[in-house]
């Protein structure tokens, strides 16, 4: 029997690699830079933000509530923070980690962030205690924008009245600001929350609070599988398609959203993630997966995104 656990681990690694490769390939040719934004972004600030809540969510996520007045008041839906990890136990993490703002509570002067414990940085971050402070910089990047009458398109001359939002894993966080905006603007929001299992779904309580219709889908019962999810969404929306689709958390979901958008004539916006050091555009570390002339630098995830248009490549 020796070697069996090692062989099983190798097989799991192969599956993981194949899944990651397929997810990355799903974005090929899909990402497009959006037209100029119609309102200025808030100026980013850095702040020593006290940790008010730091709790376990599901099996491998953590939820942070940070007191940071300016960011809570100014952040737009889909923007993100750079969060450095304080040194502890001899572990030094040099680079801050980019994390989406999950919820904004301007009246309390707080923001919520949910992250997965994955590598050295997030493992060390999970040890930060309530009462400590994190040196956050934000709000950063270009977030999601609902189409409105100020930028009419051929298919959508009117402001968005309905939106379909699709989030998987911690990718749900990037879209939750838009669920908040939808509640504020009276836009009908249907939110697909995807995860490994019911216990690992992020955003159920938030969507209930914000009055959004939720479609929970999970890997363990097969409901998150692409053909099943695609068929279900076509059944729900083909008669009355949403005015916009927002997606984050998986390349394959972005592609599905782009396919649905093409069928329904609805614009699709996708939020991407990338390794980055500064979050402000000067380190040039986060090249977006957009094929460009080799002599010209392509868009950066941090300042040109993280939200881009997702458009099916012309076959």
């Amino acid at each position: 029997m020796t070697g069996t656990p090692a062989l099983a681990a190798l097989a799991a690694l192969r599956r993981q690699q194949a899944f990651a490769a397929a997810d990355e390939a799903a974005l090929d040719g899909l990402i497009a830079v959006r037209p100029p934004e119609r309102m200025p972004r808030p100026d980013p600030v850095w702040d020593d933000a006290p940790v008010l809540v730091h709790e376990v969510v599901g099996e491998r996520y953590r939820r942070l509530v940070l007191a940071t007045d300016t960011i809570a008041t100014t952040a737009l839906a889909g923007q993100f923070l750079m969060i450095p990890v304080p040194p502890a136990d001899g572990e030094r993490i040099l680079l801050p980690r980019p994390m989406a703002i999950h919820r904004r509570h301007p009246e309390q002067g707080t923001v919520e962030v949910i992250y997965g414990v994955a590598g050295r940085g997030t493992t060390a971050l999970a040890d930060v205690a309530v009462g400590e402070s994190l040196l956050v910089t934000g709000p950063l990047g270009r977030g999601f924008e609902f189409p409105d009458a100020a930028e009419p398109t051929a298919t959508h001359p009117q402001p968005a009245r309905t939106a379909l939002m699709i989030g998987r894993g911690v990718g749900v966080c990037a879209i939750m600001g838009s669920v908040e905006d939808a509640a504020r603007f009276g836009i009908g929001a249907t939110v697909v929350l995807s995860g490994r299992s019911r216990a690992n779904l992020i955003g159920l309580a938030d969507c209930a609070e914000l009055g959004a219709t939720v479609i929970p889908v999970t890997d363990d019962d097969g409901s998150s599988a692409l053909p099943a999810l695609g068929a279900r969404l076509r059944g729900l929306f083909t008669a009355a398609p949403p005015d916009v689709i927002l997606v984050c958390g998986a390349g394959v979901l972005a592609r599905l959203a782009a396919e649905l958008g093409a069928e329904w004539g609805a614009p699709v916006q996708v939020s991407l993630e990338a390794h980055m050091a500064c979050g402000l555009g000067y380190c040039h570390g986060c090249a977006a997966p957009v094929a460009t002339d080799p002599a010209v630098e392509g868009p950066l995830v941090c300042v040109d995104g993280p939200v881009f248009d997702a458009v099916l490549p012309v076959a």
Partner: protein
Amino acid sequence: MTLAPPRPTTDARRAFFDARPADSAAVDLSVRIGSLTLANPVMPASGCFGPSLGRLIPVTELGAVVTKTVFGTPRGGNAAHRLTEIRAGMVNSVGIPSRGAAGYLAGQHPLYLALGVPVIVSVGGHRSSEYAPVVRDLRGAGDAYELNVSCPNLDRHGTDIGSDPDAIGKVVRAVRQETDKPLIVKLPVLVSSIADCAQAAEAAGADAVCVANSVPALPLTALTRSPILGNVIGGLSGPNIRPIVLRLVWLAARAVDIPVIACGGIETADDALDYFSVGARAVQVGTASFGRPYAMVEIKRALQERCEGVAAADIAELIELWRA
């Protein structure tokens, strides 16, 4: 779109801006680089600063800013991933995207100028003949030029110009024909003799050398042992390279009379003072700014306070006092 109404806020950034100390009449932090006098010796490392960071910190407290390296013709930069963090530090293979000299002048230079401190324009090339045309095309923009002969992640994975004293001499002499402004030569880590390289720069007319750049490195993923970076090889930076660069700065400072600007893993005023104590006259801060945007300003303020604390007139006297 309406958000909650604005109300008084107390973000830590504003408090930091408001805490700007008065310039001390008793402490002189200034440093001369050729004909250029910097108010203090703290500046960013090329590639680790941009005008967008200038909005987050009181940048007028810096001695200078240094631009991302400008090449003669546009470059797109390397494939993703362009950076990662491993236990040893940050590794980047950004590949220096550049819009070329004309693109820099039109797009970036006005933003740097508006910062209100001397602008040191970093200039790059793939061959020793390529530097002078870039400086010519910059048409006098910038207060000084830093000649980047040491980026470890360009096309040939090489540091070929910066490790060859003859090539360094060629670059400096050619650029000197184009400008009277101060020239700084940014040297690499991997050289057989940093003293020979620094002396070659000095003999050819450079006004300072910057020692050093990131350390060529190859980070692998933990699980599959495959390269993390799109370019395979990148440059290691952060506090772990400090002892390596300290040695180089010590050797270079003994070899030349022109100022040595230290660059390698500086995070605090103490780190900067390590470098000053082995002969550096100015410091560049890179990786530290990513985690703490105000690191450079904090270092400058702390250097002034350290001098004031023991009534030292300047950093040299502060170091003498310790050793007396």
